């Protein structure tokens, strides 16, 4: 079943690419749904271990437990409406688009599930190619610049990470790249070495998180991508830098993380606030969403770099939840573009009168995105900020201010789209649009109302990240003072 989560979208993608005519859309949607069903069974699935380069202890090792299964599930859920949107909205080279989306989903599933550091790297890089091609073939007029910028940022980071990946095994003397062998050995390294190695990982992860000041590719990336919003969702799912810190860099090199913590925590808090503030000033719908997404990434960052169990767990919960909320926002932006042929906010206004259902769903997703309690992003944001406050009250306050700014841009966005004078009427939700939005709404509610299921699974990973793989249960008195997640959930 673990391998199925990876192979179903991969095979589905190739089939969708090869299928002629309109049937390809059906093939792709079917593959996306099947991948989602497979992802549902991940928590009980068995790990996979296939040798790749045994001389160096590298293999295709996949471990479906913990946070991985939650992220694969959220990504698979977000991919269903995305594939549907692409099947309906992309007119030229539809098969290519669908194929790339599903192949990307497969690579992301591999990236989340990998329990071998080299396999993780291979999937990390392999996912880059489909997202580059989606932007390069289907992007807007200034896509060339955007592609080049994206490429240089992404590759500079990840090639430096490769040096760290190799060095962490060579220096620690671990038998293989498998997490369970690498982690105990790497944690023994001295703090200075760990700091340098961690910096190598951070080069890749900070770019892909992204954090201020290495975020500028993100804005161009979203602005130039295909107007249906489908490619933007794929890009949103690919913001996996936070996961990289959570699953690899922090558990392998805890002392290195401590060395860099002040800088990274500051950058994350600044990112959260700056992204939200910038979002309030945008006149272009996609730019606004890009900055809003950046702000979420900042919140994920403060959770991570608090280096507390609760903050790390919150960050991963938020990462999974924002796949749905941000993804939903980008799909909605695609629907707006289909109605007006533009993303300029001054082209819209008063649409609630002619399209009340669209307005209602939009309000729902906007609320989810800005962290209204009961919806998907709130639990993660809350826990991330709680963790951050344990590390630095001041920086947590800075990050918290972003939540207020989020309220401003969120409500502002709704007003400019749906309220005020109606410039021009439009049609309400079509059947296919209802089908597109239904999984998003369901996912947002599920993450908001029943976070405990996901949080329990993430919690194990957070414990490993903070305490190392040898000590699954915290033994020290200091660690025990952190409230267990179930209580934190109950307080809400």
């Amino acid at each position, binding site marked *: 079943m673990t391998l199925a989560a990876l192979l179903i979208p991969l095979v589905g993608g190739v089939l969708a690419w090869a299928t002629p005519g309109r049937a390809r859309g059906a093939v792709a949607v079917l593959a996306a749904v099947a991948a989602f069903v497979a992802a549902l069974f991940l928590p009980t699935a068995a790990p996979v271990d296939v040798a790749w380069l045994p001389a160096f202890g590298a293999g295709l090792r996949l471990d479906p437990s913990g946070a991985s299964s939650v992220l694969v599930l959220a990504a698979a859920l977000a991919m269903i409406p995305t594939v549907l949107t692409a099947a309906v909205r992309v007119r030229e080279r539809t098969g290519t688009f669908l194929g790339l989306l599903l192949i990307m989903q497969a690579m992301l599933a591999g990236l989340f599930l990998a329990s071998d550091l080299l396999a993780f790297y291979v999937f990390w890089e392999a996912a880059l190619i489909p997202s580059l091609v989606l932007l*390069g073939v289907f992007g807007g007029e200034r*896509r060339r610049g955007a*592609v080049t910028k994206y*490429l240089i940022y992404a*590759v500079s980071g990840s090639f430096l990470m490769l040096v760290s990946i*190799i060095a962490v095994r060579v220096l620690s003397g671990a038998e293989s790249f498998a997490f369970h062998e690498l982690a105990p050995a790497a944690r023994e390294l001295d703090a200075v070495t760990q700091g340098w190695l961690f910096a190598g990982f951070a080069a890749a992860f900070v770019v892909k998180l992204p954090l201020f000041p290495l975020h500028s590719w993100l804005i161009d990336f979203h602005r130039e991508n295909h107007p249906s919003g489908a490619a933007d969702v794929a890009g949103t799912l690919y913001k996996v830098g936070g996961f990289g810190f959570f699953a690899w860099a922090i558990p392998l090199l805890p002392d290195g993380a401590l060395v860099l913590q002040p800088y990274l925590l500051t950058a994350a808090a600044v990112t959260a606030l700056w992204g939200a503030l910038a979002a309030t000033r945008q006149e272009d719908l996609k730019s606004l969403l890009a900055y809003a997404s950046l702000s979420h990434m900042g919140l994920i960052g403060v959770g991570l770099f608090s280096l507390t169990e609760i903050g790390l767990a919150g960050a991963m919960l938020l990462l999974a939840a924002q796949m749905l909320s941000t993804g939903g926002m980008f799909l909605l932006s695609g629907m707006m573009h289909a109605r007006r042929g533009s993303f300029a906010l001054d082209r819209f206004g008063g649409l609630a009168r002619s399209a009340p259902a669209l307005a209602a769903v939009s309000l729902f997703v906007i609320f989810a995105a800005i962290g209204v309690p009961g919806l998907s992003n709130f639990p993660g944001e809350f826990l991330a900020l709680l963790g951050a406050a344990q590390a630095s009250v001041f920086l947590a306050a800075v990050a918290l201010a972003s939540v207020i700014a989020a309220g401003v841009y969120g409500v502002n966005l709704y007003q400019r789209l749906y309220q005020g004078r109606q410039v021009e009427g439009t049609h309400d939700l079509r059947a296919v649009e209802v089908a597109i939005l239904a999984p998003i709404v369901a996912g947002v509610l599920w993450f908001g109302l029943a976070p405990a299921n996901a949080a329990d699974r993430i919690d194990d990973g957070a414990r490993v990240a903070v305490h190392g793989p040898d000590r699954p249960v915290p033994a020290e008195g200091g660690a025990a003072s952190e409230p267990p997640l179930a209580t934190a959930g109950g307080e809400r």
Partner: protein
Amino acid sequence: MIAPADIVLTPLLPFLILLVAASAALLIDVVQHRAQTGGPLALVGLTFAAVSYLVQFGGARTEPTAVFGLHWVVDVPAVALGLIVLFGAILSVLGGWTRVRRDDLDRPEYHPLLLLATAGGLVMVHAGDFVILLLGLEILSLSVYALAAWRPDRRPSQEAGMKYFLLGAFASAILVYGIALTYGATGTFDYGGVAQALLAGAGPLALAGGALIVVGLGFKVAFAPFHQWAPDVYTGAPTPVTTFMSVVVKAAAFGALLRIVATAWSGALPELEVALAVLVGATLLVGNFGALLQSGVKRLLAYSAVAHAGYLGLAVVAAAHGAFATEALIWYLAAYAAMNAGAFVVTMHVMGDDPDRGDRIEAFEGLGARRPGVAAAMTLFLLSLGGIPPLAGFVGKFLAIQAAVRVDHVALAVVAVLGAVVGLVAYLRPVFAIWFRDGRSSVPALAGPVRAAVVLAAVATVVLGLAPDLAYRWIEGSGPLALVPWTP
């Protein structure tokens, strides 16, 4: 002294087969003028040579042995490198199949010279002493000088041949001087003997000799700053010859360099290893930045060949000390032979009949829509050259960087990856042109042998990446190169 028992000809069989094939091709073509039997005959000869390798050494692990009193070494690295040399030559012959005819290159001596150069390459990778090395190098070089200037009607080709010849002769002279000084310092030409003498005590004479050897071979493998002939010669020479040079000459020269660094010096000349590291770092930067600045794909690939000399150099620098460096070098050369020959073959056919301007990146525009198969293969080759997983080039980079990190050359590894970023941007420019832009370029369908070369290279690029262990298992443990027991 060579005892009669040492004179065994069977290990020389691949080399002898190539000589026979070259002579036969020469004779047949002279008798039946324009009979065009050179290509098929070359292919048969190369294939038989490869088969004779596989039959003799393919099964069980080959124990290091030597014939002719150590002068012709047979061990796993030598056999693997020999096979890579043959593989590259086969790809060059197949890939140039139609181009050679259209460009009027297939005069009777073309394929015989190619075979002789390949035979010279085999001598270099099997050489167990400096004299044999020099013999192989000259057999190889003299043939390639002639091939580079194979189109007397075109100035760039003449210029390439002349440049390569003058600089090459100069480099050979320096190498000979280095060998002479080494002999003066150690009293032997034999790698094992040199190693014993150097480990007993290395004076300034040995150091000077070693430095001159580094310069001489550095020219052949195109280490910066001795790389400057490479872009001009690669661009000016007929593309089928460039394909051959970039793969076969490189593999042979690196094979020789590896053995000298790992066996003959075996860590006794640390100053030279520092010098090598500096050269490698410079090569990585010059090659990758140079590739970025080019407007022609052939020239881009020429600079890329320089850059890849840098990655290979990482393994050479590590070879004297670290385990796994020899394997890394062999692996990288195998991957490089596939992806680089593939890229050159596609390029030579996209360029068409206009060798002066045809290699501009614009010529690739719209290839994705017109010839999706060729375009996909070219994309594979370029991505692999750029080191994107899970292709062969990535595994090669991984192994080379790991070899460097193991011997504490972390700074060099960082230079390598920063260069790789630049290189990747350069490689993706043709990829973008192929897929993201429309163009009017028309590329005729590839002829059978050419298609075979592209498919062979593409399959190797993918399989070596996805299942590296298939090949790695065979070369694993072949380094660090042992001192073969030496009895005078």
